[in-house]
């Protein structure tokens, strides 16, 4: 029954999207400035061999469905739902649910559940693994990450100045902050009545197409196991998304100040990824590499119990065998928490996109 409900949830937008076009005819459907319904889907199938003490073999990744539809010329709904394979069931998650009113290029106001823009990767690729070059996200912003809050529930104002030579943009938000489980956003309310604040700025210079540099700040009070801390996250990123080369780098410092005094601790997390699409006639191939690090202060009251320290290096190659499908082969060398042993893994992934586009 649960599986049936999940299937209906994922398929309903696909079925409903055809109704207006069929009912109104092509001309009636097209001759309006109201944004039409767009459906997108992403999925991935993986195979893993690893020295880690986790299950090996074939692993179904996520099936993610995205819908955007105009409710009026300026009011748009965006939704993203994922189904993730677990040992005992598929977990259905509303990843994003956003209602946005566009006043102008400079001012857009929205409410709902977002991917937290304090991380570049989080908002550049969301759950579309086909969009990203590598098999998986960096550890600092992986799905279910405790290091950076992946989701944000609240209100957001955003906009940009696309004709400025620096191509400036911004976002500011107020929301619930982390939930009881610090890897989750406060979906059902703020657990400590202390709203999280968020601000980001970025630049996409007009004459350097594909380049984005930006910074963000996130302030909250986080709680776990009766420990309350003031949390300050500062991040910066540089992303060059042209394929020759592709360079993505991101750094975040997470500062925790325990309530009522105590030692202030800093956690540093970063990654640097580089890729290069090969020239013709082998331009379907894109080799890539990434190095990353999470350095948690041993005295951090929020993070230390979870053993989040991480060092990792990976190399891989992506093969775009169809316009909306890719094969990736990736070798990883990682060290988790305080383990002395480095653990090696080999991942293969088929990822693809589908839908009305």
């Amino acid at each position, binding site marked *: 029954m649960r599986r049936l409900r999940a299937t209906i949830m994922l398929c309903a937008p696909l079925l409903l999207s055809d109704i207006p076009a069929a009912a109104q005819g092509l001309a009636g459907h097209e001759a309006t*400035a109201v944004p*039409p319904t767009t459906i997108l889907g992403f999925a991935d199938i993986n195979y893993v061999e690893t020295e880690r003490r986790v299950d090996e073999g074939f692993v179904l990744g996520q099936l993610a469905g995205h819908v*955007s539809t105009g409710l009026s010329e300026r009011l748009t709904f965006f939704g993203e739902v994922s189904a993730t394979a677990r040992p005992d069931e598929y977990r259905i998650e509303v990843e*994003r649910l956003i209602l946005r009113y566009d006043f102008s290029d400079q001012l857009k106001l929205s409410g709902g559940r977002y991917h937290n823009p304090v991380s570049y990767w989080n908002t550049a690729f969301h759950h579309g693994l086909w969009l990203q070059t590598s098999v998986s996200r960096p550890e600092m912003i992986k799905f279910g990450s405790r290091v950076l809050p992946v989701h944000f529930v609240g209100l957001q104002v955003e906009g940009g100045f696309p004709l400025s030579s620096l191509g400036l943009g911004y976002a500011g938000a107020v929301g619930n902050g982390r939930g009881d489980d610090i890897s989750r956003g406060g979906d059902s309310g703020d657990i400590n009545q202390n709203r999280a604040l968020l601000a980001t700025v970025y630049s996409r210079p007009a004459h*350097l*197409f594909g380049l984005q540099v930006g910074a963000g700040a996130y302030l909250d009070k986080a709680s776990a196991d009766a420990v309350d801390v003031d949390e300050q996250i500062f991040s910066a990123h540089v992303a060059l998304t042209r394929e020759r*080369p592709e360079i993505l780098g991101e750094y975040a410092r997470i500062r925790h100040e325990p309530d009522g005094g105590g030692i202030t601790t800093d956690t540093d997390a970063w990654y640097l990824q580089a890729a290069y699409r090969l020239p013709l006639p082998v331009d379907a191939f894109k080799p890539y590499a990434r190095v990353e690090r999470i350095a948690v202060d041993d005295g951090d009251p929020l993070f230390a119990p979870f053993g989040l320290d991480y060092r990792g290096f990976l190399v891989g190659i992506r093969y775009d065998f169809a316009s909306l499908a890719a094969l990736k082969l990736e070798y990883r060398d990682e060290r988790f928490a305080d383990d002395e042993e480095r653990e090696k893994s080999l991942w293969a992934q088929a990822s693809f996109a589908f839908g009305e*586009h």
Partner: protein
Amino acid sequence: MRALLRCTVVLGCLGLSSAVLGPPEAAAQGPASAIAIVANPRTTTSDLSFLELRKIFLGEKQFWDDNSRIVLLVRAPVARERDVVLTKIYRMGEAEFQQYWIAKVFRAEVSSKPKIVYSSDMTSELVTVLPGAIGFLPADEVGSGMKVMRINGKLPGEAGYPLQ
């Protein structure tokens, strides 16, 4: 941290050298091959810089100066005018163009992808009736009831027009 910064700067410099994009070179072809940028006649804008045109077609500028919504029309493959626009405005191939809009919609940076039109007649019809619409046509197929945009102050066929 220093190592990270050093790597970022070095790789960034390598990347920027190939990412710097100058204005497109005008091909030395006759006026018959020019592509006209056409807009709804009620659009208050008549002259766009090439940068503005590019930002509009990339979905980064989504509102006209009078704050009405821009409705972008793009011709479906396979049409010569689409090839010209992808080459000179987007500077992308078909696959890259497709991926660009999937990502743009998925990131909620735009409310929708461009409207796809299947013929010059369909472009003409929609541009005429749809407030805020902007599209492109072979210059010799431009009819009445639409506004032909100047690009960098030039009309199709004039020397220096960037979409020849």
